[in-house]
């Protein structure tokens, strides 16, 4: 694929939109001809990020807005997932495997670890007033690219 392509999706912070978001992004990235494993990784990452926005950012409120953006440039996927909810107090702690701020909700504390593992680049910007924004990148060495 040549040139940029871009999508932006905004939706209510409702849990039924978690699957809507991951399936939409998965459909968008198929133009890079990713493997099934790569599609699975992107779906999982989107699911983790959107779930975090709903549970932690908006603390279960359904009147918030979650925004997912994806950009394709060559074989690179850039993803951003943002909310305007409550920011993350201690980023270092939040990124520790198995840490969760909501143990009563049976969170596994693996969300950040999974996102960092499945993406090549991972960055979090969070503030109390402005909410949280995750920015991530992943290179897709597609079958198409191999034949070029």
């Amino acid at each position, binding site marked *: 694929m040549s040139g940029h392509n871009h999508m932006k999706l905004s939706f209510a912070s409702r849990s039924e939109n978690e699957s809507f978001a991951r399936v*939409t992004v998965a459909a968008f990235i198929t133009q890079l001809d990713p493997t099934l*494993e790569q599609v699975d990784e992107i779906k999982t990452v989107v*699911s983790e990020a959107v779930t975090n926005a709903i549970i932690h950012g908006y603390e279960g409120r359904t009147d918030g807005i979650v925004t997912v953006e994806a950009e394709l440039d060559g074989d690179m996927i850039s993803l951003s997932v943002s909310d305007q909810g409550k920011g993350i107090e201690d980023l270092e702690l939040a990124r520790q495997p198995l840490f969760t701020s909501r143990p009563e909700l049976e969170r596994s504390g693996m969300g950040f670890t999974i996102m960092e593992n499945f993406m090549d680049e991972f960055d979090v910007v969070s503030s109390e007033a402005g909410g949280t924004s995750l920015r991530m990148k992943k290179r897709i060495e597609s079958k198409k690219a191999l034949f070029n």
Partner: protein
Amino acid sequence: MRERFVELVTRQAGYGEGEMRMSLQVELEQQRNVLIVRLRGELDHHTADIVRFKMEDAIMRGRCDHVVLSLKELQFMDSSGLGVILGRYKLLKSRGGKMVVCDTQPGVKRLFELSGLFKILSFYDSERLAVAGLEVVS
């Protein structure tokens, strides 16, 4: 004796392919003191509650000692799924029971590996082997 009851869960409209119309289906089957829990579809934060509720209900009513999680048709799972599985594992363990997993898809299996749950749960290739494995310990 064999008791079989099927629970269907359809909380959300489908997006994309036809088979995704159903977000998660939970099927419970009792084989002596073993509860087989078959999950079909997608296990995420939205669908985790129903798995928690169904399994908790069956375990607390004392109908089973052990659980086989049968995941052949579980197409997707994220860390919310790991959370609910870990929670039920702890509950069973506190009651002296065991949880084993069988038939995982590659993507789901990878998440178990990444989270370390692979080390505390036993994994089998089929339901038959999983039940057989449990009957040795029960």
